Each structure stands twice: as C-alpha cells, then as structure tokens.
C-alpha cells in the first residue's frame, strides 16, 4: 500500500522532539489500548501483519494528526469490526454511554484466578517468532547484488518506497520468515527467505541530497528482490 505510513524521506515534519523523563505511557487510556491490542494478538484474534495493515488504513489525515496509541485504537476498532468481533453499533452505543457517564464500564480491580493473565506472561517470554523452516534454499547469498522489484500493491507490503526499484547488496541472510504480504490478508504465512540489503545512500537519495558516507539497510523478502 502506497501511503503516508511509508514516510522514509518525506520532508516537512519539522524537528525531532525528545521528551526528558518520558513515561512509558502518558495517559491511562494508552495503557488500555496497549493491553487490548497485545492481548488480542496473543490470542490469535488477528496477527501482527493484519494489525499493521489496519494501522495503515485508518485514514491518511488521521494518521498524521493523531497520537500513536490513537493509531492503535483506530486500527483495533477497524480490524475488530471487520472480523465481527465487535460491531460498530455496539461500539458507538458503548462510547455514548461512557461519554454520558464517565464512570460507566470502568475496569474493576484485578483479582482471583486469571488464566489469560498467566498465558500472557508466558506469551511475552515466548514471543511470536516469524522464522519458519522451508525446504527451498535461499536464492541470494551475502555479497550478491540485487535490485528491488517495483511492487506497489494496494494491500500490505514491507518494501519501503525509498528503496523500491533500487540496486543494493545482500549483507545478511535470515532464513525464511512469514511473508507479511499474504499474512496480513488471509493469514497465509507463505514463508520466504529474508535478507538484509544494503543500499548506498547516494543512490537512494540522489547525489545532491545524501548525507555521506551513509548506507541504508532494509530487511526484504525474496519476492521483493531480483538479481541485479
């Protein structure tokens, strides 16, 4: 998906503003959103690639003018309605109830046996590895010259525009990993060999615009690459 989430190289967003003594969460609602999103992913309601693609689809203006956890909230609303886990009518009604009574539907304190909490504790430790064993060997080896394909699907892809249709060199191989392009849409893992590809900064950004010496490194799946 060509969209504003793919923002590498854009101008005009101004200076970076680090915050001194930044808290992990700035507001309590961010905690709710973080926990909701992670808990549902851990339970397999959606996968990480589906969720990322939902973030890409919340609307370009909203993406640019809302905070990070608002992105997550908007994406969760979108994907959970699409999957029928919740429906928009009950969500709208629930929001209205809470606007009318700010104490409505407040979360009670935790207590007692909680198998979900225990499973999540273990899930954080185990993670969700993306590596998969596949029969086919890798097409490329470290040192190989490649060129990225000109892939511009409407759906999910993890080939940033700034390195699309550009030459590079393989610097790492990682075995086969779940392919986000399919995984985001039908859950099909279609594992493909993953490579870290180095791109010369001047080739990517143009001679006039590049800091130098500098190189961009991007992790790219085999279907994104052709021999140079």
């Amino acid at each position: 998906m060509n969209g504003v989430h793919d923002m590498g190289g854009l101008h005009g967003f101004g200076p970076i503003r680090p915050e001194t003594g930044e808290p992990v969460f700035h507001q309590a609602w961010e905690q709710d959103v973080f926990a909701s999103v992670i808990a549902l992913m851990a339970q397999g309601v959606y996968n990480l690639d589906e969720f990322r693609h939902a973030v890409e689809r919340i609307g370009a203006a909203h993406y640019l003018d809302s905070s990070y956890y608002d992105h997550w909230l908007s994406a969760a609303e979108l994907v959970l309605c699409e999957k029928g886990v919740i429906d928009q009518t009950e969500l709208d009604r629930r929001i209205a109830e809470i606007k009318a009574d700010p104490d409505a539907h407040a979360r009670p304190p935790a207590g007692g046996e909680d198998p979900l909490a225990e499973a999540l504790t273990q899930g954080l430790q185990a993670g969700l590895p993306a590596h998969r064993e596949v029969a086919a060997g890798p097409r490329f080896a470290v040192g190989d010259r490649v060129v990225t394909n000109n892939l511009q699907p409407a759906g999910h892809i993890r080939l940033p525009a700034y390195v699309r249709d550009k030459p590079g060199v393989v610097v790492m191989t990682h075995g086969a990993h779940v392919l986000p392009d399919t995984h985001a849409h039908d859950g099909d893992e279609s594992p493909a060999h993953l490579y870290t590809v180095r791109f010369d900064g001047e080739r990517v950004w143009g001679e006039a615009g590049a800091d130098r010496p500098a190189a961009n490194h991007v992790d790219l799946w085999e279907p994104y690459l052709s021999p140079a």
Partner: protein
Amino acid sequence: MSDHHHDHGHHPHPISDVQARARALESLLRDKGLLTPGAVDTLVSAYEQDIGPLNGAKVVARAWTDPDYKQRLLADGPDAIRELGFGGLQGEHMVVVENTPEVHNVVVCTLCSCYPWPVLGLPPVWYKSAPYRSRVVREPRAVLAEFGTELDADVAIRVWDSSAEIRYLVLPERPAGTEHLSEDELAGLVTRDAMIGVQKVEAPA
C-alpha cells in the same frame, strides 16, 4: 505516569473522545471474555516495571567486559541476550550491530514502530514520530547532530530500517576512561538513546 493519568473511580471533568473510545473497546472486550483486568495489569506492569532499557544496558556492559560474550552476542543476538534472561515478544530475532571508530549505527522503523522490546522496552514517542521516521533514513548525520552526536566526516553511518521482524540493537563504543568501572557501573552509563544509535555513551564526568 504523568499528571494526565486519569482516575477510573472519579471524573470531575468530562471524558475526552479518545478516553471514551479506549474504555469502550476495552470494556467490550472484557464483556466478550477476550480481556481481563488482570491481563491489562500484567501487560502494563511488564513494560512499566520490568522490561526497559536497563535490560539492554546490562547486555552492553556484559559485551564490553566479556569478549567471549560479545562474540556470541554479535553472532546470535537472541541466544546471547537470553543468557541474561531477556527475550520474547518483539525481540524474537534480534541482531546486534557494533559501533566502531569508523562505523556508526542507528536504528529506525520507517513503516511503523518496530523496536527491540525485550532489551529497550516500549519506544519513546519521538522514535515513533513522523520527524524521526522520515528524516533519519535520508539525513542521518543531521539527525544525529540534533541529538548532540557530532560524527567525524569520514565515519560511515549505517541506518537500519526494521522492515521485518529483525530487531536491531546498537552496541555502542565503550567510552575511554572507564577501564576501572565494574560491569554494573558500566551498565549505569548506557542510555536508551545510545542503544538506538542516536547518541554515544559518555564517560562519567
């Protein structure tokens, strides 16, 4: 938590739109048996209390003081990091990249917000922001300078864009004049920003 933290039990002020939306979603998921108060507490406390850049700092200090460990760390990040007890979600496939006098590494995720959670915790707002994501891939030298990191003109900058599930951790250079410090003391010098690669580790004054 900042003073924006709202109290679930009492609301002198009307609730904001985003607060209401978050509560609505969270409470609906509880009603449907997909979320529990304990699950929320577990996830929040994991990243507020347990999992943060101190983990990464311990990894770095160990690598600085134990050459064998450093070798293992650069060869297989997740295995070496697991030796110190860290690993899991968003750190299943970590790669450690080493700064040297000739090479400076810096990490970003232009497409979203990928970050090595087990060793750095959750990313700061600036890391997830449009200015950082848009700029550091194109003008890393200028961005580093904004963070106070002035590199010599011949230092090669390597920008790592976390477009897959590989999570990059920068192994900063050990500052000169720290030969007398213990591993724990060294860990105390290592900042989150140095492990993202936007700063260097400074020797104690």
